[in-house]
């Protein structure tokens, strides 16, 4: 193994209930699934597993993920401290958080330990309305209050904006807003399959306007895809996800949280990869270009196939339980990305 990224699911729970969240089927969450929270006694096994499987040539990344990773701050803090003092391999930490659980003490710790952070914020207040607490309360104000301190102490923080049918109309306004805040930012498209032609045209129009006005654009819209990376994420032989119970998965979206979800784990931190066939299937599938040729799927005749990486495989799996099907939304948004990039040339 030559992994370069370890995604740690610190907890499967979150203090928010964003209406579009991939984990949002909370109402069906299986609370007895024994996959709830990482405990400090797991740290030696996680680090041992990483020592055995990490890339021998490249530095590695520990991605502190969730649920909301700061909902398990005790583990977060201990893991960073123990790893920094005991783990010999060159490494860094990244985390994606919702920002509502940050306070000065935590920001100071993250800054001191050079933890790179991405904070979820969907732009201006009207655009952020889907990001609500368990009790249905808005979160925009609390994030805005803490952003100046984050900017001052961790300047490289990235803001993550989710755009879906509920807020695509604010896309341009949001980009302008993030420019004003002077944060780098990414857009995550909420992959719904029922965007109308008009809606997609509107999204494209707004992104072009962002470009025309010379605003800094979302990192992941105009950035050229690195084809060696395979899919939209790192491929399965580069990144591995560790669930709170120590089981290994391709990504967080395959960790079973719902009742009756199929378990696609291919090992655990103590024994390593035990289901090689399943692991190899994921590796094949996540190298989209070679995989798509073999499978002779529709993409082979697509004119933008060189610029598209076939979308998120977890999205596809959850939608159709079929890796061979490419979702309509993937084609829609790849087309937009392609058009924007063509414009940039």
């Amino acid at each position: 193994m030559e992994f370069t990224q370890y995604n740690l699911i610190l907890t499967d729970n979150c203090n928010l209930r964003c209406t579009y969240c991939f984990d949002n089927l909370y109402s069906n969450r299986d609370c007895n699934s024994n996959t709830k929270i990482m405990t400090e006694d797991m740290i030696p096994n996680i680090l041992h597993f990483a020592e055995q499987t990490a890339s021998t040539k490249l530095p590695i990344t520990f991605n502190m993920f969730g649920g909301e990773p700061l909902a398990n701050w005790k583990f977060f803090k201990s893991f960073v401290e123990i790893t920094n003092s005991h783990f010999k391999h060159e490494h860094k930490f990244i985390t994606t958080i919702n920002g509502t659980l940050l306070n000065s003490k935590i920001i100071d710790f993250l800054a001191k330990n050079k933890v790179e952070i991405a904070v979820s914020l969907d732009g201006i207040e009207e655009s952020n309305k889907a990001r609500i607490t368990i009790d249905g309360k808005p979160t925009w104000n609390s994030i805005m209050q803490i952003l100046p301190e984050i900017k001052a102490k961790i300047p490289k923080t990235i803001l993550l904006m989710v755009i879906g049918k509920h807020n695509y109309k604010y896309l341009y306004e949001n980009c302008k807003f993030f420019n004003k805040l002077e944060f780098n930012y990414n857009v995550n498209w909420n992959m719904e399959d029922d965007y109308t032609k008009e809606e997609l045209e509107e999204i494209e129009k707004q992104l072009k306007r962002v470009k025309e006005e010379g605003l800094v654009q979302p990192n992941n819209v105009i950035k050229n895809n690195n084809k060696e990376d395979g899919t939209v994420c790192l491929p399965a032989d580069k990144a591995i996800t560790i669930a709170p119970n120590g089981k290994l998965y391709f990504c967080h979206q395959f960790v079973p949280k719902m009742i009756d979800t199929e378990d696609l784990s291919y090992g655990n931190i103590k024994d390593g990869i035990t289901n090689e066939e399943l692991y190899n299937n994921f590796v094949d599938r996540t190298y989209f270009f070679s995989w798509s040729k073999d499978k002779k799927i529709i993409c082979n005749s697509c004119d933008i196939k060189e610029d598209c990486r076939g979308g998120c495989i977890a999205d596809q799996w959850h939608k159709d339980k079929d890796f061979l099907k490419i979702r309509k939304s993937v084609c829609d948004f790849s087309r937009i990305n392609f058009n924007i990039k063509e414009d940039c040339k």
Partner: protein
Amino acid sequence: MNLIITKRCDKGCPYCFASHTRNISDKDDVDMSFETFTEMLDKAMPNSHPKLLGGEPTSHPEFKLFIDELLKRKLNFTLISNFLFNETIRNIIIEASKKVEVSFLINSSNLEDVKGRFDLFANNYNAIYEHLYKDDKEEAMSCGITFENNKTSEYYIDYMQKLNEKLSGIERFRISIANPETKKEDFFILNNKELGKKFLTVTQTAITLGFTPSLDCIIYPCMFENKEEWKYIKKFLAKIRTRCEGCPTDIFPDGTASYCYPLKESIKVDTRKYKTIDQVFDDMNMRYRILEDRVTHPDKCKNCPFKKINMCNGPCLAFFDLSKETLGINI
């Protein structure tokens, strides 16, 4: 799942952690509706074991209806009561205990404060005890007392002896510390050797009188004078816990739930937003953990040997000021 089916209670114990619910007005949801009650049972696991409490649960005007519903569902349950009810209620309870397993956590404190109270308590207690005794189920009854600062170990020894004289039999005896009501950041429990002494004396007295002593909620090892005292407590006091091990889930008459009574509004959710009580439990545990990781422990806990070996995690959250101003977050 603790179902607070009513806020009514006439006993008025000075240490009561629910005293803030005594100042009830017409606007409040004083009694849980039958619809809310059945909704909670529907959301719980099919084999759940609800605890009915209050206030005083037997004060609910439709207490019988609630018990009948539990019987219809064949659910064993626990009744947390002051045992100061009338004969009708007593008979409802006895009849219920013939059909399902009923456990009793009985507030046995402060019975001398009002004339006639001790006798009423003893009559009810003895009638139910004797009924259970016939079926060899008397261990389902547990008396309980809560320590008050102004009462000495000697008081509790006398009081326990009186209970022993008046009651047909005491099998189990629960001991608890009063939780902080309004004064936050007053960590009176830490290194409180006097309180430790009370625990030790009451535990020893209970054993002498043939009761099985057990702990309600949590205890702090630093309360004891030396290792031998702590060893004794660990050995003879059942259900010893030095840290909160999970959300008790107190569900109020209006359908909101608090992590536990003493934490009141600090960790509170609306159960109607959830499909199952397990999910309520899970979310409140998460919130507890978030807050627990962010409070600043008192200086007395620094360098504590029990904390170093992970035996104790400092005072429970009910002792802390959990406001946004203090913690920097609002959950």
